[in-house]
Each structure stands twice: as C-alpha cells, then as structure tokens.
C-alpha cells in the first residue's frame, strides 16, 4: 500500500482533482462574467454578491488549486522535456516551494479583504 501513496502518484491525483475543480469554476466564471452585457448596474449587483467574505475563502482555495496545477504542470514538463526524471522528488519540492510563496503572497490580501475592510476600489489609489 505504500507504493499507492508514492509522491508521483499523489501529485498525479491532485493534478486531476485541481484540474477538474478549476474547469468547474471556469464554467461558472464565464457564466458570471457574461453579466457584463447587462450594463453597470446589473454587473455590479452580481459582482457585489460574489465578492462577499464567504466567496473570498473560495477564491483562496481556487488560488491554491491554480498554483498547484500550474507548478505541478511545470514539473511534469521538466521531467518529460528537460530530462528531470532523475531529480523528480527534489523538483517536486522546489516547484511546491515556489507555489507556496506565490500562494502566501496572493492569499494574504484576499484574507485581509475577507476579514475586514473589504476589497479596495481601483479608483482609491488613482485619485
């Protein structure tokens, strides 16, 4: 049973899970953004709804899924095309470290806006 949870297997499995989750989100995302055709009031009403704190937590999970999928994908390319098979394990931890740094960097502002203050209006810094 140890072989079943081999690093490469876990990465392969997580790649599928995150891939399917991201694709499911993509479908909803295209649908939601289509509200742009309803004009400013219609679009802003929908966007206000999907930018509530609970959705922010979902956004953090989405960011994690995207970063895992992207970083793991780069690892797969390194193994297949750059002869990285010999350093597979080290490669995995390297890309995951980069992914984790990007995740912390990206998740923190979302968390801040979720727990207090809310998101910053684009115009706020431009005035």
């Amino acid at each position, binding site marked *: 049973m140890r072989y079943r949870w081999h690093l490469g297997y876990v990465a392969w499995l997580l790649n*599928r899970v995150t*891939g*399917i989750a*991201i*694709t499911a989100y*993509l*479908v909803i995302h*295209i*649908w939601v*953004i*289509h509200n*742009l*055709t309803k*004009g*400013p009031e219609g*679009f*802003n009403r929908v*966007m206000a709804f999907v*930018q509530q704190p609970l959705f*922010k937590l979902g*956004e953090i999970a989405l*960011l994690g899924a*995207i970063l895992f999928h*992207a970083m793991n*994908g*780069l690892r*797969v*390319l390194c193994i*297949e*095309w750059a002869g990285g098979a010999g350093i597979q394990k080290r490669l995995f931890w390297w890309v995951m470290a980069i992914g984790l740094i*990007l995740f912390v*960097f*990206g998740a*923190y*502002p*979302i968390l*801040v*806006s979720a727990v207090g203050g*809310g*998101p*910053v*209006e*684009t*115009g*706020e*810094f431009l005035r």
Partner: protein
Amino acid sequence: MNGGLRGMNSGGLIGWFLQRMTGLLLVPVVLLHVWVTHYIVGGSGVHQAEVDYTMVAARLSSPWWKLIDISLLLIVLYHGLRGVWVVLQEAPHRPWVRIALYCVILVFGAALAILGTVTILPFRAPPAALLR
C-alpha cells in the same frame, strides 16, 4: 477501444503535445489575468481590488486586452475540457457512451466559447461608466 474516431483518442500524440503546450502558455497568462483583475498595488502594499464594471470596462476598452482575454478563454476551455475528457476515458465505456460524452463536451465547450466571446468582443462601455 477507440470507437473509430481518431480525434477522440486521448493517447493521441498531437493531443498530448497540445495539452502540454497550452498548459505551458496558460501558466503566465492565467497568473497575469489573476494579477490584473484581483490585485492593486498602492498605499501600504498589495491589496485585493474590488472587481466592478468600471474596472473591467477600462481594461476592455483596449483591443489588446480583448485579444488576450479571448485567447485565454479559448485556450483554457480547450485545456480544461480536454483534461476532463482524458479523465472520463479512464473508465471503460461502451462505444455509444464514449461518442455521446465526446459530443456533450464538444457542444458544451462550443457554447461556453460563444458565451465568453460575445461577452468580450462586442463590449463597449457607455462613456459615463468609465468615469468614476
């Protein structure tokens, strides 16, 4: 095994190659998309930006952003739905189920591609919306 349709074969070399190439392309493009739509630098550092009509309209007033967004839409739909198709194929299916699943994914993908394109391509913000 292959139900007789070459394009349906998940093990196809071209399909496999395209999945890698689109994946590689999507890494910087998706990260750019997330960065420009959700973050803003100012004040005391990086903040999450409020996504509203004005912000999206400002970006879509450039034909280059329209091109980038439509390219992203089509590439990510191809990559994502092909990935789902590969996963679905792992379970053994009768040939007619395979063909039905393939058609469903194809029609679904085409519908989403059209829905996304008609959102972006003809978009023109009313002039008042660009003023805050």
